[in-house]
């Protein structure tokens, strides 16, 4: 292809727009599986978390796990999706070795919830993505291929899932990722899902089509299956958009098909076409009664929803005047956000002194999160690893009131994280309190002057740079405990005196 052609093609590609809809499957954090009482737990010995029901043995029958229903309803309410008070379970029939019954219990014509939306922000632009439905279903097992043999592990079979289907309202890979991230944030925040894409507890299929700008009619779509990270979702969609535009521009036709993303080559490849598409023969699950939800239940679930990350960010910016970066970092993980909010509460009620909220935010973002990441072999950001809110606040106070300096503060924090001890105890044990006592500091400074008389003469004669040298010497002698403010003051006074 010569350059001219390329440019033509490149320009032509700008006259297309992409249309993207996402189907998200998210496992629910229930104790037991969706239709039996086996534990819902990851990483156990293959086929150890199974029973007649999830093995699909003859005669076994499903029983609805109401904790799963509760979490699905909670997810729907958090995503502004209407709850359907009567919904039906349905069978989705197909053969595969990881599907023990030969059908998946899902919902089809009457899902537990339908018609909702999620507001997303991409590069500063807000957009509302409509959600078609959220329904309850069960996960399949897993196939493990070793050499020429395949093994079936059914521990995952029957794990509760919600499938969340968006309308085709996204027009770029970036928007798709914003939607996914926002969706995952909400589910993780509300304790509905652990949102783990690598372990497959949060999965995404993308329906991608392109059309010429201004066209009303949707193009033929391809479905990209199971892409297991945000990065790959973006890459896969971008690749697919490019592939479809190139194909149309070179006179080809898009066919409706399922494609798999190959992350090594960064391409999508055809998995099966429309002709080979399954006919799932959905019909009402005769083993389960209709799912009836009453107003009281829905109201109860509604009340259990905590503040969503989006509204937290807005509130932090409005009430505490935090930067958008600060808000973002503080709300990324619900445990951090709740921790931060607890610190604000402690600040409000304690009678030892008040700290600016911006400062508290800085402590959390710059010091606490940094320290947590620095501790080896400790999974960062887990709730259990955080110091007690009261203790962390006291540490901030120790620094803000000048009892210890900032650097010592960081040392104390690390010690708190490793040992769980209280800051006051650590300061006392390690004798870390700042030396603020003037007499003592004056003595030390005089001694340093005596030991460094040449530098002192130079400083007095105008070599101001040496001021820092003397501060450093004081810190060395006091092992970093000297109150830097006091040291500055005393030094300045002495030198002024000497100058005069």
């Amino acid at each position, binding site marked *: 292809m010569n350059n001219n052609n390329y440019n033509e093609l490149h320009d032509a590609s700008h006259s297309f727009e992409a249309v993207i809809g996402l189907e998200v499957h998210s496992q629910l954090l229930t104790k037991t599986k969706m239709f039996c009482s086996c534990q819902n737990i990851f990483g156990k010995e293959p086929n150890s978390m199974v029973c007649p029901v999830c093995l699909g043995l003859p*005669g076994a029958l499903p029983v609805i796990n109401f904790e799963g229903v509760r979490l699905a309803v909670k997810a729907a309410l958090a995503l502004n999706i209407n709850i359907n008070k009567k919904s039906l379970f349905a069978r989705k029939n197909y053969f595969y*070795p990881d599907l023990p019954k030969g059908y998946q219990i899902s919902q089809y014509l009457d899902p537990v919830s339908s018609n909702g939306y999620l507001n997303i922000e991409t590069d500063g632009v807000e957009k509302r993505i409509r959600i078609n439905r959220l329904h309850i279903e069960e996960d399949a097992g897993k196939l493990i291929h070793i050499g020429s043999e395949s093994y079936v592990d059914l521990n995952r079979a029957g794990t509760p899932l919600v499938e969340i289907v968006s309308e085709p309202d996204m027009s770029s890979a970036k928007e798709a990722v914003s939607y996914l991230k926002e969706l995952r944030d909400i589910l993780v925040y509300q304790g509905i899902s652990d949102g783990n894409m690598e372990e497959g507890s949060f999965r995404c299929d993308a329906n991608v089509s392109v059309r010429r700008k201004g066209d009303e009619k949707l193009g033929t779509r391809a479905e990209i299956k199971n892409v297991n990270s945000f990065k790959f979702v973006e890459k896969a969609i971008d690749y697919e958009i490019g592939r479809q535009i190139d194909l149309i521009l070179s006179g080809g036709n898009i066919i409706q098909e399922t494609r798999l993303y190959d992350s090594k080559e960064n391409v999508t490849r055809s998995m099966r076409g429309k002709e080979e598409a399954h006919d799932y*023969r959905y019909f009402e699950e005769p083993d389960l009664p209709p799912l009836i939800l009453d107003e009281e239940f829905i109201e109860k679930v509604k009340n259990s929803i905590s503040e969503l990350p989006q509204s937290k960010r807005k509130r932090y910016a409005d009430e505490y005047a935090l930067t958008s970066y600060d808000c973002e970092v503080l709300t990324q993980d619900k445990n951090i956000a709740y921790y931060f909010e607890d610190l604000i509460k402690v600040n409000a009620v304690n009678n030892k002194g008040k700290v600016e909220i911006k400062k508290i935010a800085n402590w959390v973002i710059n010091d606490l999160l940094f320290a947590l990441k620095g501790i080896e072999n400790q999974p960062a950001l887990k709730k259990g690893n955080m110091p007690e809110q009261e203790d962390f606040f006291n540490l901030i106070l120790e620094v803000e009131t000048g009892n210890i300096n900032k650097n010592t503060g960081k040392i104390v924090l690390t010690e708190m994280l490793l040992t769980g001890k209280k800051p006051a105890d650590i300061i006392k044990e390690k004798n870390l309190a700042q030396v603020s006592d003037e007499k003592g500091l004056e003595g030390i400074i005089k001694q340093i002057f005596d030991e460094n008389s040449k530098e002192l003469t130079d400083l007095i004669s105008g070599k101001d740079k040496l001021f820092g040298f003397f501060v450093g010497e004081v810190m060395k002698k006091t092992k970093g405990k000297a109150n830097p403010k006091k040291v500055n003051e005393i030094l300045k006074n002495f030198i002024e005196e000497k100058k005069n």
Partner: protein
Amino acid sequence: MDLSNLTIHQINDLLKCREVKSVDITDSYIKRIKEIDPIISAYLYNDFEEALSNAEDADKIIQKNSDFPYLTGVPLSIKDIFLIKGKRTTCASKILDNFISPYDATVIKRLKKNNYVFIGKTNMDEFAMGSSTENSAYKITKNPYDLNRVPGGSSGGSAASVSADLCAGSFGTDTGGSIRQPASLCGVVGLKPTYGLISRYGIIAFSSSLDQAGVIANDVLDAAIMLKAAVGFDEKDQTTRKLEIKNYPEIVKKADKLTMKGLKVGIPVEFFSEGLDPKIYLKIMEIKDLLKGLGASIVDISLPDTKYSVAAYYVIATSEASSNLERYDGIRFGSRFNEDKNLQSLDELYKKSRELGFGKEVKRRIILGTFALSAGYYDAYYKKASLVRKLIIKNYKDSFNNVDIILGPTSPTPAFLIGEKMSDPLSMYLSDIYTISINLAYLPALSLPIGAVENPTKKGGVLPVGLQLISPWATEERLLSVAKVIEDEVKFREKYTPVM
């Protein structure tokens, strides 16, 4: 002493006054099975060692207690569709040839609590699909009244085992008549309770919304005793209901012909039309007159939509079956037919296992049901059949506004010859024409032997005729009481016994 021609309540009387032991009774049955069953072929397999050990356990309980459940020490046969832990359960299919059940059906658990004696698994149509037991993959069961004739089906082995005194009673299942029709053909009592009255957990599913376990017994009181032991809500089957458990045996004992006065008995015109053997018609009319003589008022009624019941039934039942039978894929349990090392793919393994594992009728129904649920045909078949089902439910509901009980024939003909209908599935399907609509309407019904007609192929021989009684939802006590009154009048057991 021959102890193998007793009813359950007679056995209970003997055990109570400690005249005999369960071991003696069980031994009598074992001797009789060894002698007679090679001719009848009611059983797929027996476990006499287990039976005697059950009997010994029962005897210990009887020794220690003056009060024990009715079924204690009573040898019962079980249709090979119920899972019994540690026992082979084939559903009369090659595909489950090697299947040993790892768990107990809820019914079996309840029977064990009642200290019953398990004497053997009875023959049936493969996966309960059929009306003659000729569809068993293993053997053909003979009607004890004429060895050239079928016992009916699908619970033909169960009915024959009771009729030929090869057990004291039997548990079967009824999806479209599979208890009532063989009971009628073999001259015993067959009760199909209300859908949801007895747990389906651990019963191999044919059509989940129609399947219902029930009892086959020598007389009405025995049926009441067996029913009481099996009914009740089961948390493992969400289609069971939390209903008050009635004391059926006590109710039956109090049944009095005086209570027939004022009883409104419905005679549906549709049950007495073309296709009904005139000799059976006359027998049913005798009962009508009998009840009238006892003071009952006879009301002609119409169930106009029941003429669609066979069509609707074969759509719904085969659709559900096509899905229920998907788990038999040769992957996890049952027979895997992979001796042919040339199998190239997973699909071929599925195909081979299902081709060799399923019989002709099962395949026919899987194909019918798969077709009925296919994209593009769902509305025309499954959906329409479900609408017809609603109409049939309404027909019955409307009728029961005016009558207390409905009376008609169980089967259009007495027992037919082995092989007579095997080449004509439609004529076989029509042998359930009077029983099917009751399953569609979730109602209880009972078949009671009321007499016999001349056997045209056996000089001096007779063939039993069954009367069907149908009552409103969850009113088994009414069925049993009316049946008991008729039973006392016609004295079938005193007049007829199989001649083998």
